């Protein structure tokens, strides 16, 4: 809100915004003030202030409105699975059969989402396990070992990697990783492992960049004091730098997980999209996102199938809120530690 207020007092910003809202009078309003008497100028200025306040306030309100209505919409559709269609939430969260067009023994559609929930958490956790050592190692190298190479080569490489569209990662996964997995694991090569590897590469730049920021924010005095006590570089990194940077490093990992959990396209291309609980890392599986993107276009609004897809979306939304909550809790804890 601070920046919004600041911008509203910026004449140029207000004027241009004004021109946008009353486009017909744009010429008149931009030439007018210079020829007017002092009192009118003052009035015009205070009017500008007010208009600016309204415009920026409107923008802020719009953002909040979009977020709230988005949550409301997803929740409304997602919850109607349980309240309108009468699906038992337990059956949804623990059922292992996903076949919404058919009904089970109890006469209810088979909408067990457990395979996708398991799939989503598996690829997220596995990709994190893969990515953490590499991200941490790269960040330590870039900050502690060789800052020159870190800023000249690693940083630009990370920025480039962040900008690559996810479909490109998916394509590479499809053409390289899936055949590679197939070559030694047999089967089709699609599955959790291929999905996790693709996600790991996608998440790597995010986690590494944030980890670099976290390590860089550790005061140089900590390192100096540690060296001055006779610590080696590795003792300093291990006992002091990593420890001091822990909140930032955890945030990096959680944000990486959030991204992995929500990624749809690249995963969908390599995971196999079989809505069954995976028996191994190299057999086809599915995630919440992959089933959503595969099915959403094919089901009519208001059907049970459609509602259940919304429920999957609701699970995704809630999980992303949980990830953000975790990041905030970490941030608050580290702030209160420092403020003590």
């Amino acid at each position: 809100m601070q920046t919004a207020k600041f911008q509203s007092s910026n004449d140029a910003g207000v004027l241009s915004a004004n021109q946008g809202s009353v486009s017909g009078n744009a010429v008149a309003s931009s030439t007018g003030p210079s020829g007017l008497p002092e009192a009118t100028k003052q009035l015009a200025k205070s009017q500008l202030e007010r208009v600016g306040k309204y415009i920026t306030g409107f923008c802020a309100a719009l953002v909040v409105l979009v977020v709230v209505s988005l949550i409301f919409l997803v929740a409304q559709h997602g919850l109607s699975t349980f309240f309108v269609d009468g699906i038992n939430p337990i059956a949804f969260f623990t059922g292992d059969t996903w076949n919404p067009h058919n009904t089970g023994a109890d006469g209810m559609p088979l909408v067990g989402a457990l395979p996708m929930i398991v799939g989503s958490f598996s690829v997220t956790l596995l990709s994190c396990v893969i990515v953490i050592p590499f991200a941490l190692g790269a960040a330590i190298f870039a900050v502690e070992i060789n800052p020159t190479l870190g800023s000249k080569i690693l940083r630009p490489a990370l920025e480039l990697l962040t900008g690559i569209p996810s479909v490109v990662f998916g394509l590479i996964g499809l053409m390289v990783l899936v055949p590679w997995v197939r070559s030694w694991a047999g089967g089709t090569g699609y599955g959790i492992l291929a999905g996790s590897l693709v996600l790991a590469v996608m998440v790597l730049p995010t986690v590494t960049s944030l980890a670099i920021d976290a390590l860089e924010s550790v005061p140089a005095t900590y390192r100096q004091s540690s060296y001055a006590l006779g610590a080696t570089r590795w003792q300093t990194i291990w006992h002091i730098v990593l420890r001091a940077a822990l909140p930032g490093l955890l945030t990096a990992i959680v944000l990486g997980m959030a991204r992995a959990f929500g990624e749809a396209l690249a995963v969908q291309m390599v995971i196999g999209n079989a809505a069954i609980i995976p028996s191994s890392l190299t057999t086809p599986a599915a995630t919440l996102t992959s089933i959503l993107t595969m099915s959403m276009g094919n089901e009519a609004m208001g059907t049970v199938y459609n509602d259940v897809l919304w429920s999957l979306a609701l699970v995704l939304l809630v999980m992303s809120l949980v990830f953000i909550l975790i990041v905030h809790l970490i941030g608050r804890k580290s702030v209160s530690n420092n403020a003590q």
Partner: protein
Amino acid sequence: MQGQAVQCPPAQAESSEPHLETQEYMENAGAFTLKDVSVSYSGETAVAGVSADLKAKEVTALIGPSGCGKSTILRCLNRMNDMFPGVEVGGNILLDGVDIVSGGIDPITLRMRVGMVFQQPSVFPLSIYDNIAYGPRLLGGKSQDLDELVEDCLRKAAIWDEVKDELKESALGLSGGQQQRLCIARALATKPEVLLMDEPCSALDPLSTERIEDTILELRGEMTFVIVTHNMQQAHRVSDTTLFMLRETMERPAELVEYGPTDQIFNDPKDQRTADYLAGAFG
């Protein structure tokens, strides 16, 4: 710790060990001899021709205007300059007869023997106890010995009574003055023979400053102190010997103008530049 500055072959470090055992070492533990010491940053000489004796178990103050190389010389004494790329140290610095510049001792051992307290209180984001125990633990200290050591160090730094009930609390919760005394206690925990202090009181209020000066005066006789200070009254109050350094122009490196007993430097300086500086003519 870029390693380019001063090379130290480990083989030579071992040769210094027998020396530690001799009686002579025990008697003058912590005496520095500087012979024609110079320091250059990326090829540009910042300090040159510093020769002085820093006596064991005494307090030596380095004074002079900003940029005169006091801190640079101080950081040579525990090889903290190694941390900065492009720094080269010339001449000889002998710690109890062993040259630390040419690699007579490895920097890790040296820094255990020559502790350092910085300008800004820089406690680790750990508990008070863990801050003190950090140095000894690097050597593999036992936990029951540690309790005693922690108490001993905190007492010496005159902060035990204030923190004895909150040893497990974060050290970041202490005030600036307490943090600086904790830093002193932390430096004492590796049982150093020398304690270097780089303007230890410049970030502190007068009361905290006084307590730190009291600590220095109490511990004098147990170990050698080398203190860089902007505060000439402080140098006068705590030091036995004073070194006055000056960089007259940026074209020439800083030099040691004169050094001697503190009373003589302050009351009867031999060099006119020292007299001018002490009279407040510049700097």
